[in-house]
């Protein structure tokens, strides 16, 4: 089979760097899918992307579609053949229509009726006529944002400026948005020229001569190699931020790494602000010393070669200097005011229309911190620190620095608090109260930080849900889900002796004392509960628990989340533990039968047989100890205590008829079972678990 090589290139005005990687993946997949759908076999599809072009080279493409044999179905036999056995007009028409004659017709039964068929051999079309449809692949590419330009109606990521479509050296003719395909491409905007492509396989090489490195992986490698070289030469450490590397790779066609310097007086600016200035505003890599301290240098990537590189470096230095001067000005200016002055300004910033200003929020967070630290019974110093941290948790939001670098909220708060003479615990807690900031972020380490963090998050969650802001689908503008997960993670890490329900209750109590216009929905409590239930299930699932175990553990509320973790882990082990089978069966039996009645109180005088008496005695004997263990969140011990019931339960069921006709006796027995079930449920609803213990054969 003869093959050919193909090149398609879409030349564009500079595309957004953040779109390029996905565009390249799409181009590859959609090209392959297209070739398969038009039955054109190929050896390989290689894609290229730069800010100004998207290209694909198809190597070893068949010149012709695969031939195909197909069965064509015609009229039913009774219509194809008349009573005398002659071919009808319908049959003649059918065979002609398929390019055949009536001699080719054969009959086959379909669903009990005989139909006329002919075998059709479809000769594959030549690739040439099919390739012009590559236009559809281009138009099928999707981007997060498209635009229109000039007077055209089409939308695309950026204006299309040229199109290359080559079958070997022949142009495949089509047109998009008034641009026709040709065999001519453009090199680097300044270093390259317009060139003619004679062979698709020479595309990459030809562009390289025009200062375009078309392969984005190669560009990325060149950048990291040059950075590594610089590290070695200078004895620097340049942390490789992969997002930044990706971005600078997609901002250039021909990368050259260079470095610049800045006055070391700027090193007094907090590192985080320096790094944000360099990375996010200028796309520079910060430079560290061997002991990880910031040095007054930056590393950047130029779109071009190294001619006049010193001019480029100097220009970049000038820009960074202006930015750092601003940052320094902000940093110094911010220190001229007091925390109280900043706090006063918070009453002018609306947090949420119905939930008031940030100052209002701060007041609520302080009140909640008070309640939480009381619940936790922390010492007075810790409590006072936590309250102070809550009071000033948001003051930095109105500083110049945070206004300029929003990401530094909390981080600047901590730094400024220290400069303003707050103690170490308070300063730290200000930063920690935003933690965890993202899914895998660190959690607060101090009690003060954890308490304020929980207070702040609970206030946000309960407040928002109360006024009707309930996350649904991708809609979660206040990131309530992440915040609830944060609360649970902190509780799990600290192992604090408090239940999630209790924390929700104290927050709701606070809200009841405030004049906040609640949502008209009357099921707010239900919303809050199911919202937290879903988050608790989520984090337990993340900890590799399975759904039935999660449901068992959370059946009677979330309770103490670290206890829930321990119980879920323990039950996950026990699910397959054959030595637990006996106990599990006994306890589940109690739970199931208990559902048939209620607890009207056990009358000891009504206990009839010895087994019944023994079960009751055991209940009395372990009840207190068990509940102490539950209150101490001792999962293993409490389950151990429950398992002491095992022989008594089995004996009881072996000798006692619970559902007896004697109502009084029946109710007494059901009451006893309900007493025990209540104990089991304090641990988990074991009847929800799908047990998988297999006894050894």
């Amino acid at each position: 089979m003869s093959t050919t090589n193909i090149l398609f290139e879409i030349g564009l005005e500079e595309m957004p760097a953040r779109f390029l990687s996905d565009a390249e993946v799409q181009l590859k997949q959609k090209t392959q899918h297209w070739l398969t759908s038009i039955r054109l076999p190929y050896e390989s599809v290689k894609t290229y992307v730069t800010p100004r072009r998207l290209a694909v080279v198809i190597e070893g493409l068949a010149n012709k579609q695969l031939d195909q044999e197909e069965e064509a179905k015609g009229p039913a036999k009774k219509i194809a053949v008349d009573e005398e056995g002659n071919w009808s007009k319908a049959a003649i028409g059918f065979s002609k229509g398929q390019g055949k004659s009536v001699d080719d017709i054969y009959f086959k039964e379909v669903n009990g009726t005989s139909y006329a068929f002919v075998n059709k051999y479809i000769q594959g079309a030549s690739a040439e006529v099919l390739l012009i449809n590559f236009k559809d692949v281009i138009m099928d590419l999707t981007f997060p944002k498209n635009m229109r330009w000039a007077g055209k109606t089409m939308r695309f990521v950026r204006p299309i400026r040229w199109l290359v479509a080559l079958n070997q050296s022949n142009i495949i003719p089509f047109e998009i948005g008034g641009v026709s395909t040709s065999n001519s491409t453009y090199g680097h905007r300044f270093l390259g020229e317009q060139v003619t492509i004679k062979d698709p396989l020479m595309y990459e090489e030809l562009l390289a001569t025009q200062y375009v490195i078309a392969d984005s992986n190669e560009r990325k490698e060149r950048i990291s190699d040059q950075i590594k070289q610089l590290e070695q030469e200078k004895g620097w450490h340049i942390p490789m931020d992969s997002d930044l590397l990706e971005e600078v790779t997609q901002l250039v066609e021909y990368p050259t790494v260079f470095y610049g310097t800045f006055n070391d007086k700027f090193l007094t600016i907090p590192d985080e602000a320096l790094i944000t200035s360099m990375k996010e505003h200028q796309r520079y890599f910060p430079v560290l010393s061997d002991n990880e301290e910031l040095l007054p240098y930056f590393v950047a990537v130029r779109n071009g070669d190294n001619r006049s590189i010193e001019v480029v470096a100097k220009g970049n230095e000038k820009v960074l200097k202006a930015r750092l001067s601003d940052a320094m000005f902000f940093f110094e200016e911010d220190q001229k005011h007091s925390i109280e002055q900043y706090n006063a300004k918070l009453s002018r910033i609306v947090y949420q229309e119905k939930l008031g200003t940030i100052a209002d929020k701060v007041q609520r967070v302080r009140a909640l911190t008070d309640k939480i630290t009381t619940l936790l019974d922390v010492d007075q110093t810790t409590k006072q620190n936590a309250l102070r941290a809550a009071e000033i948790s948001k003051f930095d939001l109105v500083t110049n620095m945070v206004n300029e670098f929003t990401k530094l909220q909390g981080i600047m708060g901590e730094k400024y608090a220290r400069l303003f003479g707050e103690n170490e615990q308070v300063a730290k807690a200000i930063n920690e109260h935003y933690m965890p900031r993202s899914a895998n972020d660190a959690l607060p380490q101090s009690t003060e930080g954890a308490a304020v963090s929980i207070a702040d998050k609970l206030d946000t969650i309960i407040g928002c849900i109360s006024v009707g802001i309930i996350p649904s689908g991708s809609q979660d503008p206040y990131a309530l889900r992440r915040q609830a997960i944060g609360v649970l993670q902190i509780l799990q890490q600290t192992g604090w002796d408090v239940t999630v329900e209790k924390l929700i209750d104290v927050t709701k109590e606070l809200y009841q004392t405030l004049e906040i216009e609640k949502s008209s929905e009357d099921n707010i409590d239900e919303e809050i509960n199911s919202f937290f239930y879903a988050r608790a299930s989520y984090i337990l699932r993340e900890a590799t628990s399975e759904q039935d175990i999660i449901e068992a553990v959370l059946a009677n509320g979330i309770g103490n989340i670290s206890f829930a973790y321990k119980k879920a882990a323990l039950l996950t082990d026990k699910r397959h533990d054959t030595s637990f089978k006996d106990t599990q069966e006994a306890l589940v039996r109690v739970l199931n039968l208990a559902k048939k009645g209620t607890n009207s109180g056990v009358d000891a005088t009504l206990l009839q047989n010895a087994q019944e008496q023994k079960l009751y005695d055991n209940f009395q004997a372990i009840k207190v100890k068990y509940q102490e263990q539950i209150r101490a969140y001792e999962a293993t011990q409490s389950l151990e205590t429950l398992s002491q019931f095992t022989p008594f339960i089995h004996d009881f069921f072996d000798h006692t008829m619970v559902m007896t006709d004697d109502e009084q006796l029946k109710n007494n027995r059901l009451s006893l079972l309900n007493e025990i079930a209540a104990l089991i449920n304090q641990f988990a609803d074991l009847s929800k678990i799908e047990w998988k213990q297999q006894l050894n054969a």
Partner: protein
Amino acid sequence: MNIQEMILTLQKHWSDQNCILMQAYDVEKGAGTMSPMTLLRSLGPEPWNVAYVEPSRRPADGRYGENPNRLYQHHQFQVIMKPSPDNIQELYLESLKKLGIDPLAHDIRFVEDNWENPTLGAAGLGWEVWLDGMEITQFTYFQQIGGLEAKPVSVEITYGMERLASYIQDKENVFELEWTDGVTVGDIFYQPEFEHSTYTFKESDTEMLFDLFATYEKEAQRIMGKGLVFPAYDYVLKCSHTFNLLDAKGVISVTERTGYIGRVRNLAREIAKLYVEERERLGFPMLKEEGKQDVNN
């Protein structure tokens, strides 16, 4: 090259591309985009190519002439071409060369920057142009203006003159830039910078400004009702500047802020609609014959 020469060079360059050279519009505004020569003229089907220098007032950026980079009023060189020409990037780069910026000796990049001005119900896609890491130009394909779809699309090029001059003249302080031989920006603008900052942050009569806003808004609405697009738009510009003065002084709370922006936006939207209707009533006089047919089809 001093700023005066830069202006002359850019004017010549864009004039050669058949742009109408306009003068700055005589009502205070925050950006060249707000001139009716851009905002209104980029609406509707009529072709429009224009270039002008626009002194732009940003009261909140006033720094009493003390900050080397921030100004109450800076200068933009504004170019609008409708429909956007296919070689617009080349035309722009050509203008940089004429300003003495050799692309081979620098690093010039088009970095994604999508522009949005909620007050004007306007949005566009494009880039900020970086010269050795410094943003020197905003380059935008208008997609929506005054809440209406831009059809055909205009391209807007906004050069920040002081920024560009600080690079060309290698000066770090904006007040040291040479405007023309022997005259610096500081000579011309230091006093107004200081006085406007003082006025904005300390001396402005807040109550009067609130009254003015309401008065301008009312007048804009009244004359809009009479189909007087351009006079109505002038009052919208006055509203916008008055709002900026109030906002810079910090007398508008966040909630109120949204409300005020919404009020200006509503006016801008109505005027945009009215402008297109008026032009249509006049038969889109700047459309060539074949263009008119296109519109009718």
